[in-house]
């Protein structure tokens, strides 16, 4: 029998980026907020101190900062004709855990989506005609526009101190920035990061080929910065132990380095770590959340009543909790009915190895940060004419190599033996002179009728609840797109002077063992009416108006950029709606 606790105004599930931002906003509004985080508390000085943070084996190979599959995992199959099996250890994606969530270990690549990404269905239909799109593609417009979100992208970037070069200031294209980006109202808060030799050489080659390269927007800061909350970040030292690791230097934007120091000092905020929410509770109408039930480390169950519930867990687990709590209707790919679980997407990644003459090129790959890099955006979204190409979508292309960590940096030319004397020699000959940028082609993943999330019928978590089941595979559109982008990247490597190039385009079937970013999206998408979405434009549940669901689960499809900038912008956009509209008049904010 769950022990009932005193009521709070707001219960937040998950203390990652969105949970931290929403908690800070709503405590500012005077509300009593409790955040429940199933992982441990983490802070810089204790959990990733400078004396031992640079441990590739512990943090990158053995994933110590990540969610343990024994605590929670998922199941996977490519299609409904297969039986889904458990992901017994992470592969294709690595899921965060603990206070700060993925904000602790991310690369800090901080992008905005394109204006046309938000009106994708309308835009592509208008430009190419509806029959140009595959008939099982289920992309749709978001219900918000880039213009709606611009002030909130700005808010998130200024929270983080994002280092970058503006490309479009209020409609005026700026040299050195991304000429394709949507108009921004003011420059980035700090200048772009410095770039290494390989990144700079890429930019030079890209320019020679007629492209307009620009520095990747980085949450690893180029200089010390105090954010609007008064929290101070340091200057990144290019240590090369960024993504997968916590930053010991206070120079990577994370909830710990931007929000939590302020949030935790507020008397109307309380965090409870190692407390796993097992259910969102509803009243007997099914249309109102009464709070959440959670389990702590002793195994005891608690009921936390609240007037407003914010679901701020990772995308997959947002959807799992909605399904387990009986909120909305589960999506059925056969009938196309139901919104919860629909339009599940990932990210289409590809790259190419560039081997250079070791006597002429030394790239010092270990001098880098997680979001360093020079990129081009000519082939993202609908920035280029797709009429004769036979696919839609695209991505940024860049030399974004983040590290030279030895265990991971063993690329040798094809045909090299995998062990022995020749292997050693090849390792030595190629370590310093190879461009190996795993995230080089970072492309869109559009949504399809048969890619979706549901509850697994067989496999359970440690509480006996069904795991969330991923049914996902690549479609021809994404494979064609990946080949196209990879070829473009290879051309730039050639222009750089690579003596040997090994193309690595994405190939199907979707493989749950091969890492391809943790950018999993959809399943609880936003839209303009209940018939096509789980949430309205303010990320408010159509089914349960006192429930908002944050994060990339709201994306109707994924664009050719890292998602966190957009996740942060949507969090601020929703916070504003809650503060200025919902709190004064609780109830549905959109009547459709």
């Amino acid at each position, binding site marked *: 029998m769950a022990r009932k606790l005193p009521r709070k105004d707001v219960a937040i599930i998950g203390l990652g980026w969105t949970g931290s931002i929403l908690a800070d906003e709503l405590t500012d509004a005077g509300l009593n907020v409790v955040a429940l985080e199933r992982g*441990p508390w983490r802070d810089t000085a*204790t*959990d990733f101190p400078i*004396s*031992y943070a*640079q*441990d*590739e*084996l512990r943090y990158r*190979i*053995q994933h110590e900062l990540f969610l*343990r*599959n*024994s605590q929670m*995992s998922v199941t*996977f*199959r490519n299609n409904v004709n297969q*039986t889904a*099996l*458990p*992901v017994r*250890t992470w*592969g294709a994606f690595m899921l965060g855990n603990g*206070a700060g969530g993925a904000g602790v270990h991310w690369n800090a690549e901080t992008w905005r989506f394109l204006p046309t990404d938000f009106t994708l269905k309308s835009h592509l239909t208008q430009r190419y005609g509806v029959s140009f799109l595959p008939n099982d593609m289920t992309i749709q417009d978001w219900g918000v526009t880039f213009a709606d979100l611009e002030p909130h992208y700005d808010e998130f970037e200024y929270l983080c101190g994002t280092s970058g070069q503006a490309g479009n200031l209020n409609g005026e294209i700026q040299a050195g920035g991304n000429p394709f980006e949507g108009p921004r109202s003011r420059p980035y808060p700090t200048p772009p990061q*410095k*770039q290494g030799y390989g990144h700079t050489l890429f930019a030079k080659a890209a320019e020679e080929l007629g492209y307009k390269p620009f520095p990747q927007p980085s949450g690893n800061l180029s200089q010390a910065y105090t954010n609007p909350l008064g929290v101070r970040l340091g*200057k990144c*030292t*290019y*240590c090369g132990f960024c993504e997968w690791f916590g930053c010991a230097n206070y120079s990577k934007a994370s909830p710990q380095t931007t929000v939590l120091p302020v949030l*935790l*000092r507020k008397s109307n905020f*309380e*965090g409870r*770590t*190692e407390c796993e929410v097992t259910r969102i509770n509803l009243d007997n109408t099914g249309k109102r959340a009464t709070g959440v039930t959670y389990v*702590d480390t002793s195994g005891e169950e608690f009921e936390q009543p609240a007037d407003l519930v914010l679901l701020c867990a990772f995308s997959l687990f947002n959807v799992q909790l909605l399904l387990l709590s009986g909120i909305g209707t589960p999506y059925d790919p056969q009938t196309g009915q139901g919104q919860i679980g629909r339009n599940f997407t990932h990210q289409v990644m590809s790259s190419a190895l560039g081997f250079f003459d070791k006597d002429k*090129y*030394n*790239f*010092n790959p*270990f*001098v880098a940060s997680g979001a360093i890099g020079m990129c081009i955006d000519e082939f993202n979204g609908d920035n280029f004419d797709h009429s004769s190409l036979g696919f839609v979508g695209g991505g940024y292309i860049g030399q974004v190599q983040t590290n*030279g960590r*030895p*265990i991971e940096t*063993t690329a040798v030319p094809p045909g090299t033996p*995998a*062990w*022995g*004397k020749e292997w*050693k*020699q090849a*390792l030595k000959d190629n*370590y310093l002179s190879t461009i190996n940028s795993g995230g080089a082609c970072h492309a869109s993943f559009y949504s399809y009728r048969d890619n979706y999330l549901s509850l697994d019928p067989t*496999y359970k978590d440690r509480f006996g609840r069904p795991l969330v089941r991923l049914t996902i595979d690549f479609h021809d559109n994404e494979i064609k797109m990946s080949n196209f982008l990879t070829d473009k990247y290879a051309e730039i490597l050639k222009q750089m002077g690579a003596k040997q190039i090994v193309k690595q385009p994405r190939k199907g*079937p979707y*493989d*749950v*063992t091969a890492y391809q970013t943790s950018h999993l999206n959809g399943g609880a998408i936003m839209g303009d009416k209940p018939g096509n979405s789980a949430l309205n434009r303010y990320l408010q549940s159509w089914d349960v108006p006192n429930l908002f669901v944050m994060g990339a689960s709201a994306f109707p499809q994924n664009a050719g950029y890292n998602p966190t900038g957009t996740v942060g912008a949507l969090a601020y956009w929703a916070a504003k709606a809650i503060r200025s509209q919902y709190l004064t008049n609780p109830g549905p904010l959109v009547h459709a």
Partner: protein
Amino acid sequence: MWLLLSSSAARAALIRGGIPWKPGAGDPPEAVTPGGWKYFTPQEALTVEAFVDRLIPADELSPGGKDCGCAVFIDRQLAGPYGRFAGYYMSGPFQEGTKQQGPQSPVTPAQQYRKALAALDTDCRGKYSGKAFTGLSDEQKDTVIKGLEDGSLKLDGVDSASFFKLILKDTQNGFLADPIYGGNKDMASWKMIGFPGAHYDYSAWIDKHNQQVTLPPIGINNHPNWSQ
């Protein structure tokens, strides 16, 4: 008022009023000291030492796998959480799926080594006049290893291809990881490839394009200038 922590293993569940923090709290890695075996039997250890010495032979580029401590590294890893699939999802039912669905076997790395090393010796004794793997010439050892690698040698009762991938990965991890874990002795691999190690601050080098970084290599707990 904020809660004090007694150790990082027992983190406060309730956080309010400030950042929970205690001076000296943390969880540094425990340095592996060679000497004795925590998982391998003496015979298994000899076999693994012989094996890693072929995967990473001694030459002018670096000492061999054995002298680099790769067998010690693997032994300590198998004795710890890695060896028993700690953190893995280990609920059944266990069933084989597609390649894309990933490994589904409940056989842990430690169990895999135990079975495979025994089967390896049985196989060698059968083929090489009663000699175990450790008794073979270097050429013969390489032949055996290549057979495991290309699938032509299937050890009895063992997924041999999977075992080869496992021992190769573990050996290379031991060769390339921070020396604190027992391998990569004296940062031999890092010196070979030109990785300066766990320096935190490379700010002075970001602008020095196409120039060799002249910092001496350091690990988490060793630097040429530090006294023991």
